[in-house]
C-alpha cells in the first residue's frame, strides 16, 4: 500500500502543478478543453490524495509497523477510534489530511460556485492547486507519511496519552477545516484581483466559505479549550501558548472581515481593506501552521521540530509577497464608492471594531514573536506568558466587547442625538445596573466587574433588538410572540444570527471573568481524611479521600483515586481522578504516566480534582483541588456562538426582491427626515 500511496502523491503533485500552471498562464481563455482540464485536474488531485489517505489508513488499521508513521503513532492495543484519528495525530499524516481536505474544498468550490462567477473559477483552481502542490511537495520531499523502516517492530509506540481523548478525534480536524477552508476565500480574492473583477461579485461568491471557515475555526478553538481543560490537567483552558495564539490569529482577522464586508456590500467602502484582510487571514493560517510544525517557538501543542518549518517559512514569504504585490497593482481600481461621513455611524463603529480586532491580532502576534525579537535585539531570552498577554489584551478585549453592543444599534451614515438616545438608554441602564449590583455584592476585581457590566450592556442591546423586531411583527401581522420571534429570525437570518453570535461572545466574556475568582489548593490525604474548601460563591466543599484502586484497561494500567464530595454538608457523590500508565500489547510502558482529572461541572462553578500521585507507593494520595467559577458557560457560549453562525449561513432568508426597493425607500426617508434616526 505504501507504493500505491507514494504513487498517488506524485500523481496529485503532477495534477496540481498542471492545474496551477494552465490557470495562471491564461491560455485557457477561449479554449474550452483547457479550461475544463483545469477543473478536471482539481478533481483528479482530490481523487489521488483520497487514494493516498486510504493507503495510509489501511496501514494504520492493519498495524503495518514497517511504515514509520504507523509505528510512531499507533500500537496493537490502541482503541480503534484512535487508530483512525492517528491519521492527523502526527506531522506527516496531518499534512496528508490537510492536502486531502484542501483538495476536497477546492473541488467543492468548482462544483458549488454559482455559474455567474464562472470567470473566476480557473484562477480559483490555480490558487488552490498551487497551495495543494506545496503541501504535497512538503510531504514528498520532507515529511513522507509512507516512509518505511529498515525493520518491522513487533508493536508500535502507541499514541501520546494526551491525544487519547474523544476531543482529540474532532478538535484537530475542526481546526484544520477552519485553517484549510480559508484558502478558498483567499483564492477568490486573488482570482478577483487577477481577473480585475473587483465589484462585489467575489464577496458574494465567498460569503458561505468565509462563514464556514469562521465556524470551523470557532468550533476548533472551543474544542481545543475543552480538550486543554479536561486533558492537560492544569485547571485552565487558555494559556496563551504560541500554538493556541496561532489558532486565534486567523479567527480574529476573519471576524474583522465578516464585519467589514458588510460595509463594502452596503456602502461600497473598504474594498482594499477587505482584500487585505482576506490575504492576511490566509497568511496567518500558514503562519500558524509554521509555528505548530517548525518547533521555532516552544509549545506543548507543537509537533516535533523538523525541517518542514523551512518549507512553510518559504511558502509564507513567497505567497505574502505575491499576494500583496498583486493587491498593490490593482490599488487604483479599488477606490471606495462613498466616503465615511460621520464618526457617529455604523460604518465608523464597524471600522473601530475592525481596528480593535486587527489590533488584538497584532498584539497576540507581537507577544508570540516578542521572545524571538528580544533575543535578536538584546541577546537575552525572555518568557512571554499569560501575565503579559492579559495585561496587553484584556483592555482591548473589553473595548471590543463594548463595540459589540454599539455597532448593531447605531445608524448607517450618520446617527443623530435622538437616535442615540432612543437606542442606548435601555442598554446603558442595564449595564449601569449590573455595575452597581456587582459593586454592591462586594466584587472588587476591576476587569471582572468591567467584563460583566459590559456584558450586561451588550445583553441589553440584543434583547432590545429582538424585542423591537418581535413588537413590530406583532403590530404589523398580529402574530403571537413565539411566532413573531421565529419568523423574525427566519426572515433575516444574517442579522439575528449575528446577534446570537454576539450572545455567544458575551457569554464567553462572562465565563472568562469567572477565572478571576479561581481557587486552588493542594492536600495530602490518607483514606478517610477530609479537607474543606471554600467556594467563591460562599458554600463549602468537604472533600474526603476514599482510597486508590488499580486495574488494567485495554492499553493502560489505571490508578484511580476516589473522592467523596459534600457541599455544605450535603453529599454530592463521588469523583475520580486517574493516573494512567499506558502500555503496548506486551505490557511494556510506552509513555510517562498521564493524569485524568475529575470534573464536576455546574452552572456556578466546576470542582476540578487532580490526583497528583501517592506517597511512598501507598494509598495516601496527593491532590490538587481547584474551583473554577463559570466554566460551564464557556462551553455553552461556544454552542450559542456556533448556533448563531449556523443560523446566519442557513440557506434562504436572504434579501428578497423587494429588499433593494426598501433600501432606496429608507434612503429617501433618511433624507426627508433630516438624517436617519
Amino acid at each position: 500500500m505504501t507504493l500505491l500511496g507514494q504513487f498517488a502523491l506524485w500523481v496529485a503533485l503532477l495534477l496540481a502543478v498542471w492545474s496551477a500552471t494552465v490557470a495562471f498562464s491564461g491560455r485557457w481563455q477561449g479554449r474550452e478543453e483547457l479550461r475544463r482540464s483545469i477543473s478536471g485536474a482539481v478533481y483528479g488531485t482530490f481523487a489521488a490524495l483520497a487514494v493516498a489517505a486510504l493507503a495510509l489508513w489501511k496501514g494504520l488499521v492493519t498495524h503495518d509497523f514497517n511504515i514509520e508513521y504507523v509505528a510512531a503513532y499507533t500500537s496493537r492495543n490502541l482503541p480503534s477510534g484512535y487508530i483512525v484519528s492517528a491519521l492527523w495525530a502526527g506531522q506527516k499524516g496531518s499534512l496528508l489530511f490537510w492536502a486531502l481536505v484542501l483538495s476536497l474544498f477546492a473541488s467543492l468550490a468548482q462544483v458549488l460556485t454559482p455559474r455567474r462567477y464562472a470567470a473566476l473559477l480557473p484562477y480559483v483552481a490555480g490558487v488552490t492547486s498551487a497551495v495543494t502542490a506545496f503541501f504535497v511537495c512538503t510531504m514528498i520531499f520532507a515529511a513522507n507519511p509512507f516512509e518505511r523502516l529498515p525493520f518491522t517492530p513487533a508493536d508500535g509506540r502507541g499514541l501520546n496519552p494526551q491525544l487519547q481523548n474523544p476531543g482529540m478525534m474532532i478538535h484537530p480536524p475542526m481546526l484544520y477545516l477552519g485553517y484549510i477552508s480559508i484558502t478558498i476565500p483567499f483564492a477568490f480574492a486573488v482570482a478577483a484581483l487577477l481577473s480585475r473583477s473587483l465589484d462585489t461579485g467575489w464577496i458574494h461568491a465567498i460569503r458561505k466559505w468565509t462563514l464556514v471557515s469562521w465556524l470551523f475555526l470557532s468550533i476548533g478553538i472551543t474544542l481545543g479549550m475543552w480538550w486543554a481543560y479536561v486533558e492537560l490537567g492544569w485547571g485552565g483552558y487558555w494559556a496563551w501558548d504560541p500554538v493556541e495564539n496561532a489558532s486565534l490569529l486567523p479567527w480574529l482577522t476573519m471576524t474583522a472581515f465578516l464585519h467589514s464586508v458588510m460595509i463594502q456590500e452596503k456602502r461600497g467602502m473598504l474594498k482594499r481593506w477587505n482584500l487585505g484582510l482576506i490575504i492576511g487571514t490566509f497568511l496567518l493560517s500558514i503562519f500558524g501552521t509554521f509555528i505548530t510544525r517548525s518547533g521555532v517557538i516552544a509549545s506543548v501543542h507543537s509537533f516535533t521540530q523538523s525541517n518542514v518549518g523551512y518549507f512553510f517559512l518559504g511558502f509564507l514569504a513567497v505567497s505574502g509577497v505575491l499576494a500583496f504585490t498583486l493587491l498593490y497593482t490593482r490599488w487604483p481600481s479599488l477606490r471606495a464608492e462613498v466616503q465615511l461621513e460621520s464618526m457617529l455611524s455604523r460604518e465608523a463603529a464597524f471600522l473601530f471594531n475592525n481596528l480593535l480586532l486587527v489590533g488584538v491580532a497584532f498584539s497576540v502576534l507581537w507577544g508570540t514573536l516578542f521572545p524571538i525579537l528580544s533575543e535578536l535585539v538584546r541577546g537575552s531570552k525572555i518568557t512571554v506568558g499569560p501575565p503579559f498577554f492579559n495585561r496587553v489584551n484584556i483592555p482591548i478585549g473589553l473595548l471590543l466587547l463594548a463595540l459589540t453592543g454599539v455597532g448593531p444599534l447605531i445608524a448607517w451614515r450618520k446617527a443623530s442625538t435622538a437616535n442615540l438616545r432612543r437606542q442606548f438608554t435601555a442598554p446603558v441602564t442595564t449595564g449601569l445596573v449590573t455595575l452597581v449590583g456587582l459593586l454592591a455584592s462586594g466584587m472588587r476585581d476591576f476587569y471582572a466587574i468591567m467584563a460583566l457590566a459590559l456584558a450586561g450592556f451588550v445583553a441589553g442591546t440584543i434583547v432590545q433588538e429582538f424585542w423591537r423586531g418581535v413588537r413590530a411583527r406583532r403590530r404589523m401581522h398580529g402574530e403571537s410572540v413565539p411566532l413573531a420571534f421565529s419568523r423574525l429570525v427566519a426572515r433575516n437570518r444574517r442579522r439575528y444570527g449575528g446577534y446570537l453570535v454576539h450572545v455567544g461572545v458575551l457569554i464567553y466574556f462572562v465565563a472568562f471573568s469567572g477565572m478571576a475568582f479561581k481557587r486552588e489548593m493542594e492536600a495530602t490525604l490518607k483514606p478517610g481524611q477530609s479537607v474543606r474548601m471554600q467556594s467563591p460563591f460562599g458554600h463549602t466543599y468537604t472533600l474526603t479521600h476514599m482510597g486508590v484502586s488499580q486495574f488494567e484497561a485495554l492499553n493502560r494500567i489505571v490508578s484511580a483515586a476516589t473522592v467523596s464530595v459534600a457541599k455544605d454538608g450535603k453529599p454530592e457523590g463521588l469523583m475520580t481522578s486517574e493516573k494512567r500508565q499506558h502500555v503496548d500489547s506486551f505490557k511494556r510502558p510506552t509513555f510517562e504516566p498521564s493524569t485524568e482529572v475529575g470534573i464536576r461541572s455546574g452552572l456556578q462553578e466546576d470542582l476540578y480534582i487532580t490526583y497528583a500521585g501517592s506517597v511512598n507507593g501507598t494509598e495516601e494520595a496527593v491532590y490538587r483541588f481547584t474551583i473554577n467559577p463559570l466554566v460551564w458557560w464557556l462551553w455553552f457560549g461556544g454552542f450559542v456562538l456556533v448556533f448563531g453562525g449556523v443560523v446566519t449561513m442557513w440557506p434562504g432568508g436572504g434579501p428578497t426582491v423587494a429588499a433593494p426597493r426598501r433600501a432606496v425607500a429608507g434612503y429617501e426617508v433618511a433624507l426627508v427626515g433630516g438624517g436617519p434616526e
Partner: protein
Amino acid sequence: MSSLGRRDFLGRLGALAAVPAGLQVQDSLAGRGDVGTLRDPYAAGRPRDVTRIEDYDERIKAIEHRLACNCGCTLDVFTCRTTDFTCTYSPKLHREVVAMDKAGKSAQEILDAFVAEYGEKALMAPRPEGFNLWGYLLPGSLILAAGAGLFAFVSRRRVAVAAAGAPDAAPSGAGPTATPEELERLRQALAEVED
C-alpha cells in the same frame, strides 16, 4: 472465566517480576482509614512527598505564578509542579522559593534572585522596562494612533465638505413627503427588515 494466551501470560509474568515483591499485594481496602500499599506503585507516577503548608501557601503560590518553569512546558512554576508530575524542574524551583521565603526575602527579592540566577526568562512576563516596553506599549499605541488618525481623517473630510457647500449626499430627485407618524412607522418597519 477468561482465557489467557501464552503471550499474555508471559507478558504479565514479566511485568510482575519487575515489581518488588513487597508491593504486589494491596493490603488494605480503600476508605477504611488504613494506608495500604498499591499493587503497582510505578503505574501511579513518581512518588510524591507529603504536602506541607508552604506548598499551598497563598504567598508562595503568588510568587510561583510569576515564575516560569524551565522544563519547556510554558507553564508557571506552581501550575507545572501541580500539573506535570513528571517534571523535575518545578519541584526544585519550588524548594528554592520556599527556602528564600524562609530566609526572610520579600516576593520582589525572590523574583530578583531568580532573574539573577536564571536570567530574565525566569519571569512569566518580562519586566516593563527598557526594550520590553515596546512589547507592552506598541499594540495599544498603534491602535490609539490608528484610531486618532481615522478620527482626524474623517473630521477633516467633513470640514472640507462643509466648506465646499457640498450636499451631505446626493439624492436623486425630491424625496417623498410624509408626516412624522408615517416616517416613524416606516422606520420601524425598516428596522425590522434591515440587515
